Each structure stands twice: as C-alpha cells, then as structure tokens.
C-alpha cells in the first residue's frame, strides 16, 4: 500500500490493543468512548467557529468588503470573541412559553448534528464508527434536527416563530427525499451503504466522474437539496429575516441562539462532508485508473488534506449560493422539490441502475 504512512487505522487499533490489555473490555470501551466524545466535541466547536469566520470572509469578498479584521491577524479570533460574548449574554426567559420544550429545542438540534459527525470518515482510519449502514444512519440522525426546529417554533409562543417552524418542517420533510434518493443513486453504483467501502470504491476515480451522467445529475440534485435541508439561502425560509424577523429562533438569546447558529453551520459541514465522501472520493486522493505515476504523486498529500479540500470546496459553493441568490417563496420551494427534483431523481435512479447493469460506468 502506498499511503500506509498516512493510515491512522494501525495507530488506532494498536491503541485499542493497549487499552484492552490493561483494562477490562467494559472499561476499555468506556475510555475510548470518552476520548472520542471529547475529540468530536472539540472538533465540533472549532469547525463551527471557523465556518462562521469563513462565511463572513467569503461573503465580505463577494460584497466588496473586507470582513472581520480587528481581532487578531485578519480577524482570525473574531468568532472566538463572538462566542465569549454569546456565552456571557443573558438568557431572556419568555413569558407564556412552554419552558421545558423551549429549553430542550436547541439541544435536540445540536445533538442531531453532533451524532451525524460520528459516522463521517475524515481519513483512512480516522473514523469514530464505521457502520455497515453508514449513509442510512447519517440520513436518519441528521433529519432529527427538524424536530428541534419545530419544537422551538411551537414553544416560543410567537407567531413568526411558528410560521418559520412550519415552513422548516415542510421544507426539510420534502428535501429529505431528494437528498436520500440522490445518495441512493450512488449506493446503487457503489453497491454498499458503508462509508469506508464507498470511499475505497473510488480508488480509481471519484464516483462523480466514473458514474457517467447519472452521477453528475445526482451530485447537482444533492447540492440543491442539501442546501435546502440545512436551511441556508436561497432556501432560508425558516429564518427569512426580511419576512419573519428571525423565524424559529426569534425568541432565543445568548448561548441557546448560538446553539441554533452553530448547528446550522455544522449541518452545512456535514452535508458538505457527505457530498465529498459520496461523490468526490472522501479522503481518497485524486486518482485516474491506470496512471500509476500520477497516482503516486497524488498519494503524497495526506488524506486529511484531500478530505478538507473537497469539503471546503462544497462549502464554498453553498456559501456562493447564499450570497448571490434571492430567497424562494414557500410554494415555489415546494414546487421545485415535488415537480422537478423528485421526478428527476426517480428517473435518475433507474438510469443509474441500467448503467450499472450494463456495465457502462468506468
């Protein structure tokens, strides 16, 4: 194997061995879980903060501005300062709100995105859990977030919040279908739901290129649907600050608002990761089947670099959407899904199945 030096699997398994030898299996697993939990928590916070920073910089450059530039070099610590501000802000209690649900909602949203991260392969061996139903799991947990949004809208006892939450419900339930079906298209090609197998399957070329036209269509549909599923512009109807002030999180303040905010950015990171993993080869370097010398050169870059690069590319596209498009109306949003994306997707799966059956893919 050429990129064995970057294989973190050997490191993690030897660490596992070490724990197993010194502790009882129960404690060994418990220690591992705590370590992974802390690692993901830290990762979550850092990535969330720097995605906010990245968005502010990207949108600034699209809007002829400079963006944050006061705290640290190039404003690098601006979002940390913002986080400290949000942590210290008062949590305003809302009269006549459903206290329990009101307090619980941000946690549901954030837990949903937190759980999805566990299944994403960041590099070879850098993978909290490698489910044999990885894609299915991610789809399942990431759609839990909408429950939190609906609860937040309902419990706030505010009509704007309620409208925002109902919009969000309609939107996510609809676009979940397109996200799922476009992923299924690639599952048909890969023949597996396990994320590590899917990444391995792209050793000789990413599915976006090897999967013929259906893979490209699936990728485009996924990009649109994933942007909608994360409630980002031009599909940010749940927030729609020019219509509903701030939609479902109008009544939230301080760190509870920050939870919604962070979860939005992490959801963007998660869908970008999925797009990178499923369509763009995940941590797999750019390989072309048969070109050994070229492939060897590509292998010198560590897999984490490839993974981050691809994810950043997809995230940039989603930011580009947000900062150049106007917002859709709710009926236009649902029309787009049910009249265009869904039929295209269904036909696309059939075409993909046919392509795989005939062996036309590369």
């Amino acid at each position, binding site marked *: 194997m050429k990129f064995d030096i970057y294989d973190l699997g050997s490191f993690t398994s030897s660490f596992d061995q070490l724990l197993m030898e010194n502790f009882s299996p129960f404690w060994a697993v418990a220690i591992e879980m705590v370590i992974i939990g802390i690692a993901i928590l830290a990762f979550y916070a850092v990535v969330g903060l720097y995605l906010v920073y990245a968005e502010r910089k990207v949108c600034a450059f699209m*809007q002829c501005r400079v963006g944050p530039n006061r705290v640290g070099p190039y404003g690098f610590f601006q979002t940390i300062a913002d986080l400290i501000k949000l942590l210290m802000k008062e949590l305003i209690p809302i009269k006549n709100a459903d206290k329990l649900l009101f307090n619980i909602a941000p946690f549901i949203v954030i837990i949903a995105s937190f759980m999805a991260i566990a299944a994403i392969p960041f590099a070879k061996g850098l993978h909290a859990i490698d489910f044999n139903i990885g894609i299915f799991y991610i789809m399942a947990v990431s759609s839990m977030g909408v429950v939190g949004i609906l609860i937040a809208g309902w419990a706030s006892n505010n009509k704007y919040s309620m409208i925002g939450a109902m919009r969000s419900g309609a939107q996510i339930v609809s676009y979940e279908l397109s996200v799922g079906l476009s992923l299924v298209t690639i599952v048909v090609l890969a023949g597996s739901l396990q994320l590590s197998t899917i990444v391995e399957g792209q050793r000789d070329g990413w599915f976006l290129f090897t999967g013929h036209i259906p893979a490209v269509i699936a990728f485009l549909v996924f990009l649109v649907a994933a942007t909608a599923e994360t409630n980002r512009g031009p599909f940010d109807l749940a927030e729609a600050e020019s219509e509903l002030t701030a939609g479902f999180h109008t009544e939230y303040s301080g760190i509870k608002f920050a939870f919604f905010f962070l979860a939005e950015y992490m959801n963007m990171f998660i869908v970008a990761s999925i797009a990178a993993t499923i369509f763009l080869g995940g941590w797999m370097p750019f390989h072309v089947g048969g070109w050994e010398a070229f492939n060897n050169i590509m292998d010198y870059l560590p897999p984490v670099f490839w993974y981050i690069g691809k994810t950043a590319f997809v995230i940039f596209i989603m930011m580009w959407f947000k900062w150049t498009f*106007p*917002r859709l109306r709710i009926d236009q949003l649902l029309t787009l899904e049910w009249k265009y994306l869904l039929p295209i997707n269904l036909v696309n799966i059939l075409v993909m199945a046919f392509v795989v059956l005939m062996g036309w893919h590369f």
Partner: protein
Amino acid sequence: MAEEIIGGKLEEQEFSINMGPQHPSTHGVLRMMLKLKGETVMEVKPQLGYIHRGIEKMCEKITYQQSIHLTDRLDYLSAHILNEAVCLTVEDALGVEVPERVKYIRTIMGELNRIASHQLWWCAFGMDLGALTSFFYGLRDREKILDIFEKSCGARLLLSYNVPGGLMYDIQSDFQKDVKDFIQYFKKKLPEYDDLLTGNPIMQQRTKGVGLLTKAQAIDYGVTGPSGRGSGFSCDVRKHQPYSAYSKVNFKEILYTEGDSFARYRVRMDEMWESMSIIEQLIDNIPEGDFALKMKPVIKLPVGEYYTRVEAVRGEFGVYIVSDGNKNPLRMKFRSPNFSNLAVIDTMASGQKIADLIAIGGSMDYVIPDMDR
C-alpha cells in the same frame, strides 16, 4: 390587540399578526396589521403615526426659508427635489424667474438625487427578496453621488441646497468633472446590477405576476411615480408640466404596462439610465450667471393660494400654500406620493403570500417619514 384593531371576526384557521413598527423590512416605523390564513395574506391594514412630527403645523410658525429644512425630513431620499418644490411654489407666488444657471443646476442635482434614491431602493429591494449582496453593490455606487453632494453643499443626505430665488452657494469648480466621472463610472456599474439581480430566475419568479396593480386602480388610488408608471399610468410631471430645465432636455417617460412588481422594478432600472442621459445633456451647457436672485431677507407671499407639483423620486409631490400676507404661511400642505402609494397595498397584497407582501412593499419603495409627515 391586533385582533381588535383589524376589526371584524377572524374566521376559522385565520390569525392576525402585527408586522412592525419594528420589523426589518417595513423600511421604517410602518406598522401593518395582517390577517393571515397560513401563509396567505387575507388583509393588510397599515397603521401610521409612529413618526408623525407635525411638520405641516411647524411650517405655519416659521418663515419660508426655514421651512425648506423641514421638507428635507419628509422623503429624505429625495431631499433636493422636495426643497425644489417649496422653492418653486414661493418663486411662483412672488412671480420671480430664477436665472437659467439655477434651473440647470437644480435639474442636475435633482436627477443625481433620483439616481441615488433608486440605488438605495435597489439595495433594499434585494434585501427584501433575501439577496443580501445587492445591498453593498448599490451602496458602493451611491457613495459616489453622496460625495458629490457633500462637495457641493456640505450635506450628504438632507441637502437644503435650494433657497427661494436660487441656490445657497454656487457649484464648486470640480462639479462638472465629478459628475461626468460619476456618469462614466456608473454606466459601467449599472449592467452589474442586471447581472446580479434582474436576470436571476428566482428574482423573476418572485416578482413576475406578483402584486398586480391595474392602470385603473393606479389612477383611482393616485399611485404615481415609478409605481404608477409600472402599471401604464403616464404620470411623469417632468414630462406633462415641465419645470426647471426639463423642457430643454430629451428624455423618455418610462412606461410598462404589466403592473406587477417586476414592471415597477424595470421602470426604476430604466429611469436610472434616463436620469444619466438628462444629466449628460445638461452638464456641459450650464449657463454662466448668478446662482441666486437677490431676495428680501424676510419673504412675504401675497395673499392667496399656491400649488406646485414636482416629480419626486417616488411620485408626484405637491406643495400647497395658503398665504395671508405674513412672513409665515397660514397653511402649508404637502401632497406626498408615499401616502397614496401605501393606500393601495391591501388591494395588491391580499391573496398573496407573506413573502410577496414584503416584495410588493419593496417594489413600491416606501419611505415612511414621507407618509406621516
């Protein structure tokens, strides 16, 4: 509380919501009571009075020169044109003719004011539709005009450059060069606006066929300005009753007949081109002469009633003065375009979605202090 104000009973599945006076896209302190059925707007009731300052009453206590500075505060985005309206009324009542130079400069400044206002409208309209980037593009170019204003009269927004009988100062020596530079610059930048917003399919979906206003309705409600011309109502005072130097220039009155938000959008976009052409025709031909007539320090209008109308950025602006021969008017009344334009919003937005209500409000380009006065 909103239920009481909106009057009548709410039917099943209907609810009322209070939009404003503090809401991101009511463009000021406008309050709208909405009766909703799900996302659909059943009824809109605008409520005014949150920024009422009694300007008309204040005008009765001050001299005509002083009242210029209050008209700035009506439609602050077309301050120069409103100043001009008062000056024209006073000059008309006194029966004096201002020098040609004044007429030219007033027209040029007025058209610059119109472009600046349309730029800000474009920014805000994009924001209303959820396209946040347009805001910065519009403000970037508006800054150039405000710089010219600042260089000319020291103020950027509330100009008060006109005085009865002429202008407060002569134009600065770079004025012509600055304006020509700006026209050159903006001719390159205006197509960018089209690239960013006009051609966008989402934007067209959001505005085409939305907020329909027929020509008959526009005339009934007195909807003037670009909003009226988007419905095919020919109401440009510059064309029908030319004042200042408008009789000396060639320009088209922009008319679209669709009557939807997109038609109103296009009227304003085209008007920016027309304004630039008007300025270009005048800027090199500013005649030499005085920048103001010698007026008495206290102006007393002869007894009588006087009315003048001008084409402000948002429509026809009228000044009605009743004089009893004193140094201050007996009654001063402003016919503000926004007030009439707001009255029609219920007709246009009923049956549409909430998001459309915001887009319609944006396409009508409301300035709230102009309604409340």
